[in-house]
């Protein structure tokens, strides 16, 4: 069983600055972490390996400093880590990102064996799009299983996988086939504390670093800013509303004073709240 986990290193801070010319985000100087949603994907991959044997490869695209997060992932017990790093990848939107990642996963398949499962987190905390997983699946022609809350059964002989998938009004129980891409829902497991052996191994491990060319990118125009159909025209802080909140003083009986003030300002609310509380 070969499992690839797509992971992203993200800023651990709201202190984000925007480049005045390109309108892209400046990441320098901000502390970074593994995208918290991806930890569930890493843990799920390690659990499957525990059950069926095989290897777990962690893949990330990012600046050279993303090596730190890859080492962290190795310390949990992953077998190898691949860093896709090249200035051609900079400024990629979701479509360009999926092109680069899909290309790298194909190369990983050639070098280390084709993956049976590709795991991703539900979304990242910086982009929040949840679109890269589906895009990678589509480009690789993998079956796509998103928002998976539980893997019920893996049948290696039949090549099938049964999962529970969160949909809007309930849970779909699905039977599908590997190879597939699974985006794991948050909170379904807890990332392990790596063993001492793994921690030592991670510190010494060689991180595999691929440029666009190394990864087998054929068309550089499909990468990074150039390969992105979307363009960020404006990044801005939201305008404060013209009028700020009206501050009210409540005196020594604040509860009663507040209720008085509220119903004076919004007379209809009293009847509505009465209606709502009648059921209690």
């Amino acid at each position, binding site marked *: 069983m070969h499992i690839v986990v797509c992971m992203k290193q993200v800023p651990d801070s709201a202190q984000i600055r925007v480049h005045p010319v390109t309108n892209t985000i400046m990441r320098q100087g901000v502390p970074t972490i593994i995208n918290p949603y991806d930890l569930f994907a890493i843990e799920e991959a390690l659990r499957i390996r525990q059950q069926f044997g095989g290897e777990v490869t962690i893949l990330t695209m990012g600046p050279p400093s993303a090596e730190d997060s890859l080492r962290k992932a190795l310390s949990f017990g992953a077998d190898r880590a691949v860093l896709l790093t090249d200035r051609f990848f900079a400024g990629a939107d979701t479509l360009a990102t999926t092109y680069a990642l899909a290309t790298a996963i194909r190369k990983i398949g050639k070098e280390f064996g084709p993956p049976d499962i590709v795991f991703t987190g539900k979304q990242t905390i910086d982009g929040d799009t949840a679109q890269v997983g589906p895009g990678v699946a589509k480009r690789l022609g993998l079956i796509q299983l998103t928002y998976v809350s539980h893997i019920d059964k893996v049948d290696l002989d039949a090549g099938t996988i049964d999962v529970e998938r969160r949909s809007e009004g309930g849970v779909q129980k699905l039977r599908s086939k590997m190879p597939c891409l699974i985006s794991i829902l948050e909170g379904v497991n807890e990332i392990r504390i790596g063993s001492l052996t793994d921690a030592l191994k991670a510190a010494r491990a060689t991180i595999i670093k691929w440029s666009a060319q190394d990864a087998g990118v054929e068309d550089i125009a499909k990468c990074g800013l150039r390969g992105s159909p979307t363009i960020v025209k404006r990044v801005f802080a939201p305008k404060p509303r013209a009028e700020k909140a009206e501050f009210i003083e409540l005196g020594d009986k604040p509860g009663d004073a*507040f209720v008085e003030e509220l119903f004076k300002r919004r007379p209809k609310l009293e009847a509505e709240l009465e209606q709502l509380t009648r059921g209690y």
Partner: protein
Amino acid sequence: MSDTAKAPAPAGRAAAKKELPEHLKAYKHVWIFIEQERGQVHPVSWELMGAGRILADKLGVDLAAVVVGARGEATQAVVRESFNYGADLAYLVADDILANYRNESYTKALTDLVNAYQPEILLLGATNLGRDLAGSVATTLLTGLTADCTELDVDAEGSLAATRPTFGGSLLCTIFTLNYRPQMATVRPRVMPMPDRVERPLGRVVEHPLGMVEDDIVTKVLSFLPDRDSTKSNLAFADVVVAGGLGLGSPENFQLIRQLAAAIGAEFGCSRPLVQKGWVSSDRQIGQTGKTIRPKLYIAAGISGAIQHRVGVEGADYIVAINTDKNAPIFDFAHVGIVTDAVRLLPALTEAFSKRLSPHQRDRLAS
């Protein structure tokens, strides 16, 4: 790999300037994907019809509803209903293998429709289903997709300007897809107001075949376990919401939020840090990455009001903010502010509201 790209878009950093290739100029009209599962339309689809109507009118084009589902009355009813929410026409792919949502079949249905009838704008709800589908469709079509938008507009050149919070909601950005079609975007439930429903006659319905049989689909649905009503929080649709933030100081103090909520018949919620700290479960989170609410009254206690939170509550009719810091950003968009420690004020509010609203309860118990 699905590099089924037709003619490539202009080379270089072309995306920055509008140079729409000739073969994409035929793309016209605004489409809304009507999300339905088991005959139930997700309200976000009607909200999008409202937003789509405004875009279509500005562009002087048609607004079309796209309905994908099983053959039969339930799906037909959805088509009819789409006209009551303002559709000029509807596209329909009806096939029994579309009874349950599956990525493979729905992606084919929607992608084929786009290729056949060429919309310039395609909007979907940013639900689990919508995000699952939108990513696949955009990648198949090799076009731009802007996720979780909070504002949609068209600029002077007729391009879709999609605004969304970025970087965990600390900034907003406006994103364009200038040289690819369709311009795709998803919008979270409750972000756009629900338009009025007006009874209208059935308009033009364009049917398109799915061109797929069950054997073509790898993923099979074994069963569906609907959520029990009792486990669902009704936060997004509540008329009154009380929420707490880090200003509460401890997980124990979150009780004060629940108590006030119970006293006024409200749903309770929280800001993102409380979910990250594990004080409150994630289905109670209000904000960009949580629920968007549009209540008549929103009471925010000990919440500073980061943009991430703000975009989730701006649709509230009336916002009351309680915070010790009079410079907290929440006072920039609340209607009424009280500068005090929420932990001390909340019990007094609970008591005062109970006193004021309880006579009815006595009447009810007496009768």
